[in-house]
Every structure is written in C-alpha cells, then in structure tokens.
C-alpha cells in the first residue's frame, strides 16, 4: 500500500501534475454546496455531520441541514449550512 502511494506521488511529481490527479481528495466549496471528489466512501452521515474516507485520513464537514445531493462512486455533492471543514490526516 505504501509502495503504491509512493509510486503515485513520485509519478505526479515527475509529470508536474497535481496529486489530485492520482487519487488525492479534491474538495470544492462554493456557497452552500461542497463537491468532494476521489473519496473512498462515507464513514458517517447525519443531519449536521458528514465524514468521508480519503486516500490519507478522512475529511469531515460540520454544519446543519446537511444533505447529499448526489452520490456516485468517488464523487459526492452535498449542500447545507456549512460551518466547518476538518481534515484528519
């Protein structure tokens, strides 16, 4: 697993590409919406909290009235009153 991650990072560095291109979590937030790409699955979901697994650690969103607009493999779009976004690496 570590070798795989190492290879990805080295490849991104050599090709001058962003690490997100090789599976790192990409978060786009705008207004009341957040788009999370390259996640590895939902760990916890409630009305005021959402946590997803990332390549390294996890990523959480705190707020109120959170709901998932769409959920596909690797992509999650949510909306609600976002108060905080937390990384746990």
């Amino acid at each position, binding site marked *: 697993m570590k070798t795989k991650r190492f290879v990805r990072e080295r490849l991104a560095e050599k090709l001058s590409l962003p690490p997100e291109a090789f599976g790192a979590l990409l978060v786009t937030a705008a207004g009341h919406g957040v788009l999370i790409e390259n996640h590895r*699955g*939902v*760990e*916890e*979901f*409630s*009305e005021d909290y959402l946590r997803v697994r990332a390549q390294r650690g996890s990523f959480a969103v705190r707020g109120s009235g*959170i*709901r*998932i*607009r*769409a*959920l*596909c*493999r*690797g992509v999650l779009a949510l909306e609600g009153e976002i108060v905080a976004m937390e990384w746990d690496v």
Partner: protein
Amino acid sequence: MRKTLRLFRGELRVRFRGGDTARFLNACAEAGVELREIESAQEGLYACLFEEERTRAEKIALLCSGELETLALRGGSRERGMLRRRARLAVFACLCALALSLSSLFIWDFEVTGNDRLSRTEILRALADCGVGEGCFWPAGDAEAIRSKMLLRLPELAWMSLNVRGSRASVVVLERRDAPEIYREDAPADLIAARGGVIAELSVENGRALASRGQTVTEGETLVSGTLESLAAPPRRVRARGSVTADTWPERTVVLCPAAREKSRKKGFRMILGLRVGKHRVNLLPNSRKELDECDRIMKEYQIGVKGLFTFPLRLIAEVYRPFETQGDYRPDPSAFEPRALAALGEETDGEVLSCEFTRGDGFLLLRAHCREEIALTKETENP
C-alpha cells in the same frame, strides 16, 4: 430536460432503516446505484433513486441488515401504464404531432409585404400561376426559379424574396420605380388655354403674347407664342413662359338615382359556422346551405395556428346574416349632393371659386360656377 428524463425513467423516494446508513451509501455507490437527495433522519435515511434500480437497492439494503421502503413513485412505469390505458389518447396525440409535422411541409398562409402599387391579390395570383398556391408542397419548390418567373410575370417588381417557414410563406417585394420624365428647359413651346374664358390677367416672361386682357379665349387657343419673328433674321423658337389668369364659368351635372327603395335593418341575425380544411369547406351546423334572401352577409375567417410560427390548414369561417327589409320609394335629396359637387369642382380648378349657383331638377343637380383660375398650359412645339 433532466427533470423530464427522470420522470420518464421513474423516480422513487425510498426510506432505508434498520441498518448501517454509511455502509448502505457506500455499497450503493460501489454497485453503481445512483442515489440523490439523501437526507438523514432519526428513523433512517431518505433518498431518491431510479425505478429500474429498486431491486438492486433492495438487495443492497438487505445485505446491510436493513430494509428499503418505497414512499412515493413519480413518473416511470405508472405514467407509462396510464398512457397504455389511454391508448386512444396516445394515438390521437401521435396523430396530431404527425399532422403538424406533415402540414408544415405545405403552405397554408401567405404574408405579403413591401407592395404599394400591386395589390396582395395580384401578387398571390401571380404566385399561384407560378405553382405556389395555398396547399402547395413546398419541399418540391425552388425559390430562385419562382422569383425569376415572378419578375418576368410582374414587370412592376424590381426584386422579390420568398421565404417559407413551416406552413407560412413570407413574400417580400420591392416595386420598380419609373424613370423620371426628362424635361428639357430649352425646348420650344407655346402657352395654350387649358379652358375657355375671359382673360383677367396676363404676364409674359418669355415669348410673344397673342391674347390680351379682357379677351375671350377658347380651349386650345394659343395665348403666348414661342416663335419670335425678326426682320433681320429667320424666326427664333423659344420656350414661352408666363401666367394667364382667366374668368371661367364651368358647369357640372350630378345625375341622381330617380327612385330607390329604402333599406332598414330588421331585428335578429343568424350565424353559420364552417371549417375550411385546405381548399374544402365543411359546414358545422345543419341547414347551412339554405339560401337566405334579403340578408346582409358578413363573413370572417380565422386562421388556426400560432402567429409567426406555424399555421394549420384549418380556417374557422363565421358567416353572420343580418336580415333587412326595403320599403317605400326613396328619392334622394339633390341638396345633399351640393357640398360634394362644389368640393369636386374646387379640386379640379387651379384657382378659386368666386360664386356658384345650383339648379335642382328631377333626378339631377346642375352646378354653375364662376371661377378665376390659371388657364395657361405649356405645349411643346417641334423645331421647324
């Protein structure tokens, strides 16, 4: 569009309860079951999914130790089932769509713009002669060829454009302007009397006066000659110019209708409705073909369609018959025509009407007037 597609595919509102919600969400994402509008609640999880993915989602829910409950269904199989039950309605809708698309291949309405001297009827008749009439199949038409034919057929046209949108043909024309008459200022000419009368004033700018003040002249008589004679040289031809004002006594007779019956409107009316399908008319009410005597017929046609977009080959015809009756002998009053006769004379006279006198007779009105007007008229003469 996306919403319509969702409705067509069928959208389910489901509730997942009794199991691990995060596990259920991940399993659905892995299995390719697209979940939307996911909301977390005390008793579980609410989400939307396509109807066709219900079975897979139910299996996933069972694997996650929970159960999936369907709360509502929008569109999809239910709507399609309703359509199946209303097969006639679906067939009718399809036929309407087919008729609409087929009717757009034919021309059912014409719009003519840019015409001034030529009437709409003349242009449409010429178009019909060129093969573009009401109900003609347009894909077989050639706008360039029709334009060439039309320009040959109607010499008054300088340019024409024929655009067909749906079942509506838009004809834009530009009429030819006549070349102005070439006027030679130095061409030899005489001044002659346009009307007979007694000359009141005469002034000559160029030429030789042949009449004098107080002289009576008849129509066509030369007043100012353009031929200048000289003892030392042959006669010289010039353009006579001047002004000749004369007293004239024109007469106008108005012939009146000797007797007529007075028309008065009776109460009530009758309306006949019909449909014009293409070139054929269908009456909607019984006894519509019955002849109606002594009625004013007012006919109105309403085109069915969306203005500027498309036109159906259907016209609603409303005919209103208003009955009237004639009674007594009506003799027109000659005095009612006096102002009109005087106004007509004023328009014909190049001056002013000094006095007038009317003689009223049986079936006629005679107007005698005393006018003072310009009677000089330029008449070009050929050089000898």
